[in-house]
């Protein structure tokens, strides 16, 4: 018995090259962000000198000042925050609501409608940007933030994900008990179901937030005036003035990335857990 266990342990140990491989992968993932920070804090002469500078310089405030002078960057960060928060929170609530209906309520056409929701995931909507733009100009929404927020609220995957969680965590007995206590359907959702699945809804909202914050093509098409830009479009505008300073676009990128990296340090653990408990098991 003892020999089997020790042999088993020896065979199953983590080999040194596993850590080497993961170490290299970690460096590859983090180095571009570190490099962004280096260039964002040095002047052009230092950033282009070889061998490269490995420590941050003292030029950050100067470059950040240039960024703010070139485009309304603070405004663009606030726009990104508003759009991403509205989409993240909106998706969390709306998908939980629809997921609750599909998981726990009985109504004619339930299964067919759920199939429709799943099938919509296969429609590549990014290819229809021209008609989407035509609709926005009919609505008078071109160059507004709601042109980004409202289409972002529909998430078929979110409904699928919330339905899974609600089916798994909320028993029919609990539903019935609440009903007998006289709770309306809305009260059952808002007072009982939603608090139970709030962690899953939060993770869904986080992914919605990150995707909305980083979205490029649609904001690039629909936003026209600099004071409406999201941070990503402001980066593009900074790149247009590339010859002013090499570090300018890099500083903008750095300033637009820091909020998300901070968010990730705080709640990235839950995003990882969200993917690991995702719908792809088995």
């Amino acid at each position, binding site marked *: 018995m003892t020999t*089997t266990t020790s*042999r088993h342990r020896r065979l*199953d140990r*983590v080999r040194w090259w*596993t850590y080497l*491989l*993961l170490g290299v*992968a*970690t460096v590859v*993932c983090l180095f*571009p*962000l570190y*490099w962004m920070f280096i*260039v964002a804090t040095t002047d052009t002469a230092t*950033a*282009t000198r*070889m061998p490269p500078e490995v420590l941050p310089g003292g030029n950050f405030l100067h470059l950040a000042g240039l960024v703010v002078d070139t485009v309304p960057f603070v405004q663009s960060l606030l726009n990104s925050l508003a759009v991403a928060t509205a989409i993240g929170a909106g998706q969390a609530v709306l998908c939980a609501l629809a997921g609750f*209906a599909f998981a726990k*309520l009985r*109504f004619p056409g339930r299964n067919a409608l759920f199939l429709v*929701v799943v099938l919509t995931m296969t429609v*590549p*909507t990014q*290819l*229809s940007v*021209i*008609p*989407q*733009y*035509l*609709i926005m*100009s009919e609505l008078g929404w071109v160059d507004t933030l709601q042109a980004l927020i409202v*289409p972002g609220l*529909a*998430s*078929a995957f979110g*409904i699928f994900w919330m339905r899974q969680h609600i089916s798994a965590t909320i028993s029919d007995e609990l539903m019935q008990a609440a009903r*007998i206590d006289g709770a309306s*359907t809305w009260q059952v959702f808002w007072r009982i179901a939603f608090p139970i699945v709030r962690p899953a809804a939060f993770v869904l909202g986080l992914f919605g937030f*990150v995707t909305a914050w980083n979205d*490029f093509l649609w904001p690039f*098409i629909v936003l026209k005036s600099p004071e409406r830009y999201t941070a*990503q479009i402001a*980066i*593009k505008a900074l790149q*247009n003035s*590339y010859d002013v300073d*090499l570090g300018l676009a890099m500083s903008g990128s750095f300033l637009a*990335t820091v909020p*998300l*990296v901070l*968010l*990730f340090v705080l709640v*990235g653990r839950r995003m*990882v857990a969200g*993917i*690991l*408990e995702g719908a*792809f*098991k088995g």
Partner: protein
Amino acid sequence: MTATLSRASRAAPPQPGARKIKGVGERLSAYAYIAPFFVVFGVFGLFPFAFTFYVALFDWNPIGDQVFIGFDNFTRMFGDPRFWNAAGNTVSIWALSTVPQLLLALVLAHVLNHARLRFALFFRMSVLVPYVTSVAATAIVFVQLFDRDYGLLNWLLGLVGVEPVDFVQSTWGSHLLIATMVTWRWFGYTTLLYLASLQSLPRSVFEAAAIDGAGPWQRFRHISVPSLRPVIIFTVVTSTIGGLQIFTEPLLIATGAPLTCGAVRQCQTLTLFLYEQGFGQFEFGYGSAVGVALFVMVVAIAALNYLLSTRIKAD
């Protein structure tokens, strides 16, 4: 609990009339709860998707006339070398980014699944950092790293005697640069999807194999890879759909001629070509025809992938 039970028994049997009203109310609220999705998706997803096929039949100028021209946009497209160039670039960039990304993710997921791995959470979080970094920021930093004159990569290549490579200006170089950015951004996310699937396998399967003398490679090849087949098919299809819609990276790397991704369109993808025609030239009809072509490609390649993957599964 006792209170709930006693109240439950007091309420039973429920009056038939009350139950009926509740049933109607429940149905109405169910439709109200799912309505926002269908309204938003219908107006901003499905309708524009269908409308693309309609606009593609017109000479459609957003500030001028809309003239019905039948399939002329498609005839023109099939004879347009710029379209075929963009199609070739798109497929090339897609292949260069998807294959390494999925292979890398397979290997990393397998090693991350080790029961006794230390700092597992740190490694798992690290590989997801590129996913939260925006495509725009990624493009800015990678273009600098790959710069001909001041880039870190060319400096390193110079140390081993390689002449500076002008990545952005050459066809292969620009494809490689874009593929590197796509791979960097997505391999960690794919790794975690694979890891999720591996974790549903009982740990004892790997332990039994190890006791029976299966080495790390054999455990990877004969346990991890076969169990991952469904999720591999899924990621191949999603990365194909994503890969065919690459837009931001090519727009941002060639600063001199962004809409064509360089003077000779060396890295213009189909989505960028669609944007150039639609919003650069204001040819909404022709741009929509490109959108239709892209849709056909997405469906065809996804179906082909699916067939190939199930063929592999059958073997």
